[in-house]
């Protein structure tokens, strides 16, 4: 041991502690069986002699507070379990998770949204300790959004000029007669929103919701009352299936068009953002099989939407939804674990 400290006992006891931790996890018991059944064939036929065995330490998968992410966590977790790994699920904040991955407290993140988490992810990449584990097929989109029925209230949508023209329909008590656009938390991209309204001279004010939940509450409330509303939203998201709806069409995005990047600010968000996967930098060494599988895993927007719908609409638990999804997509899953 290269240890150059005089506290051997302390460290030893600590390592013992580690061993204990390594061997632990809490996982669901019942639902894994479906996944195991679906995967058993693949397991028999495949062997990967070039790689060492995966560590018996648990792989820690974060769960955030939206359905698709949780179901996906369980899908990936159950796939890992099917190849013999031990998995722990830990609730975590969707922003701090990258720092936790760097520290090794969490092993992977499977939904890295370009615009929302891109900055946190990049910052962590620069510091080291985290790997870019590839990109999902799914493209993401984030923009001003309205539920389907609003199109009838404001003819001409999704064009932004049409939206601006019926700004009064979007007015609220505190918007001073202008239209009110409910953005996500200020920290997400608040300045950009203000810049855009300013640059386009829109008859709108931006109000910043404190959390995604607040967005959904406003959406649901407006929907129930049939009231016009325009909020920040993204796709794929559960709202696609629940409300239908469309993104507002702003002037096309081009590289450097944002004010913060020196442009005039008269543009919308990028039409397609990436959805990446991240992993702790020791994952390829400690869990080579799992890491290989993880880099292979790739979801489409439709698949992500379907996962969310199983929970949000069909009322399945996340574990059951994951097991069902794996059962429904056995071939695809096998292709991830085999290659």
């Amino acid at each position, binding site marked *: 041991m290269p240890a150059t400290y005089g506290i051997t006992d*302390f460290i030893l006891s*600590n390592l013992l502690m*580690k*061993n204990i931790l390594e061997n*632990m996890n809490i996982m669901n018991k019942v639902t894994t069986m479906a996944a195991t059944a679906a995967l058993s064939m693949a397991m028999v036929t495949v062997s990967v002699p070039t790689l060492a065995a995966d560590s018996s330490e648990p792989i820690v998968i974060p769960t955030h507070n939206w359905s698709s992410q949780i179901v996906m966590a369980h899908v990936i977790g159950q796939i890992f379990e099917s190849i013999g790994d031990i998995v722990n699920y830990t609730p*975590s904040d969707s922003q701090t998770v990258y720092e936790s991955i760097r520290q090794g407290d969490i092993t992977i993140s499977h939904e890295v949204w370009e615009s929302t988490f891109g900055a946190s992810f990049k910052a962590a990449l620069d510091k080291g300790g985290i790997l870019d584990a590839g990109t999902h097929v799914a493209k993401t989109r984030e923009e001003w959004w309205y539920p389907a029925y609003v199109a009838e209230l404001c003819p001409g949508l999704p064009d932004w000029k049409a939206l601006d023209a019926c700004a009064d329909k979007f007015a609220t008590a505190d918007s001073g007669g202008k239209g009110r656009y409910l953005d996500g938390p200020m920290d997400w991209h608040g300045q950009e929103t203000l810049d855009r309204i300013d640059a386009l001279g829109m008859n709108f004010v931006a109000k*910043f919701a404190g959390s995604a939940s607040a967005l959904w509450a406003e959406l649901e409330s407006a929907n129930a009352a049939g009231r016009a509303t325009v909020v920040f939203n993204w796709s794929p998201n559960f709202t696609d299936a629940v409300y239908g709806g469309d993104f507002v069409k702003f002037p096309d995005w081009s590289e450097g068009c944002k004010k913060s990047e020196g442009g005039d600010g008269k543009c919308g968000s990028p039409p397609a953002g990436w959805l990446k996967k991240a992993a702790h930098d020791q994952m390829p060494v400690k869990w080579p099989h799992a890491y290989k599988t993880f880099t292979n895993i790739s979801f489409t927007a439709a698949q992500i939407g379907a996962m969310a719908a199983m929970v949000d609409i069909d009322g399945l638990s996340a574990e059951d939804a994951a097991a069902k999804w794996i059962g429904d997509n056995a071939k695809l899953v096998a292709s991830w674990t085999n290659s």
Partner: protein
Amino acid sequence: MRHLAQHPKLTQFGLILLAFAILMYMAGDYYDIITHSGTFNKLVASGEIAGATGFFESLRLLLNGTLPPQFVRIPENIVWGLPELINSSLLYLVEDLWKITTVDPVYGFEKNTTVIKEFTRGLAGIILVMINFIREFILGGTKTIASVMGWDFIRDTKASWPALPWPAVAGGAFLLGYSLNGMKLALLAFIPTVYIAIFGQWIPAMETLSFILVAAPVSVIIGLSLGVLAYKVRTVELFLTPLLNVAQTLPHFSYLVPVVTFYGVGDQAGAIATIIFATPPMIRLTILGLKQVPPETLEAGMMSGCSKRQLLFKVHIPTARQDMLLGVNQVIMQCLAMAVIASFIGATGLGYDLVVALNSLRIGVALELGISIVLIAIVLDKLSLAWANKSVDYLAELPFHVRHKHSLMFLAILALSIIVATVVPHISEFWGQMFYLIPENQGFSTDVWWDKLVKWVVVEFRSYFQIFNTFMLVSVLIPMRDAFLAMPVVATFTLVMGVGYMVGGIKSSLVVGGFLLFIAASQWWDEALITMYMTTFAVVASVIIGLTVGVLAARNTTATKILLIICDTFQTLPSFVYLIPVIMLFGVNDVSVLIAVIMYAVIPCTRYTIEGLRNVPPSILDAGDMSGVTKWQRLIKIEMPLAFPHIMLGINQTVVFALFMVIIGAFIGTEDLGRLIMGTLSKANAMGNGLTLGLCVAFIGLAIDHLIHTWADKRKKILGIA
């Protein structure tokens, strides 16, 4: 003039207000700048306006009747560097101090780490093992026991410990309640357990329970130890008191990121954040309790031949137990109050499920989860209380099966429910699950009804709410907010320190001035003013509502009882539950935030009003009746003045509750300190920002706390009820 001399306090206050008004007027052209939060600093930074002027220029401005800029907002100063200092110090502690290199035992790669980090992670590991051990005992699993005991055979043979069937746990709860304090407690323990099971919340509830069963005892033990230490060693007490003051007013969100940095994420981190929050009241009440033990009792212990240790553990601590039990009660309540917040850094269970449910707008589910949290709190509280008050009959010569009848009955129930859980699935899969472990999506739920109710209210009453909203925002809240922001910093100091002087002389004036100075010198004064505006409004409204409801309820014993139960429930019900319905009814604006804040902050004021009024000595009331007072006179002239010191403590609590809830209001959408604190959550390297912002909030609370306590103490002395 004579009139003024007769009312010196009134005169003082008048002078303060006059000075305040003049200073407000002298802000002059700055009005348009400072009423837009953050603009002043921005303009100074961009050089459009000066941040400070020289001495002679300032003098000239003052003589012209305008304030120099440094009197309007304190310019950039040393405090602005504090967040970075805190941040780098903490990072130094955890990443640079006392570096060591460990080697992965299996893979051989080296890891650079530090002793402090290894130590904190090790500590977190121990807590995690304890939580998982209890969790696996209840919910099934063998991983923890196998790794702790080194039983490799378990992994090899895939032997498994099944979950306890819920009827067994419910039966156990019943028996435990019964053996501790009879049928009433038995039912009180039994019914909530059944509720939790049949509402399909068994797994998250047991996860939360296992979490609490570790966090609460650890908090109690740490609180007890520190309390005893502080009692024994005066310097420890002097050191602890300000820390406790800050810890009890620091918003939880401001220390979540440091906890993550030191302890990682997961149940262990959630438990540690919970322990930080739950321990202070235990310490306080331990010190209080120990101080109140009569010296003769200790002498009796010594004369009974106690050694020092025996004296402490068998005499001193048990004699102080009334206060300590109150501490335990507080710990349990605080732990469950943290259930939701702890889930932000990885705690599983009801709190996490609640956040997820809210995020997918399942209000009914969130409410049911919230009720489960309340029920667990009540059951744990009552059971622990009964356990502490339990007596033993030593002389009864009972045969084994009578002496251990409850344990034996539990074993019988356990066996029976295991048999049922094993046999029934062969007959019906559905009923098999019902008697074993009801999954979340198969439990009974009133979800749909709640959602329908909220939607119905939204559809039917939205237009009325809209009118109310517009009125509140346009006529009350926005003007009030602007008025707060329009205060030049000297005016704020004049007002606050002036009131401090009136309440407690020079000392109080300096204390509140000191707290204020820290906030004013930080770069977040504007945001702090918005926090103060919202807190002020919420406190005033809560006090009016709380006093009214309290006064009305205190007249009637039944009403009192019901209201106190409601207070208990709402205090433990996670406030997140009503954030979403409030948004749906009132929209994303300050009205929603303030309604949510008032719902929470009104609790202590109501409770203390009732307690205060009901504790007025009956002899004084009789004396009043004999003097022929009317009911109204009795209330105004006798009851309220006597109850007021106690009510003031309730108002004090209301202030702290309001502050905490204003911060949580950031989830709806605010522009105050709370939003900034939430913002730090997403920046792993913003520990310094989070803690400094937290301190700003804490200092607002502590300044008000100081004023109220000083006033109430004075008043109590005058009334002779100190």
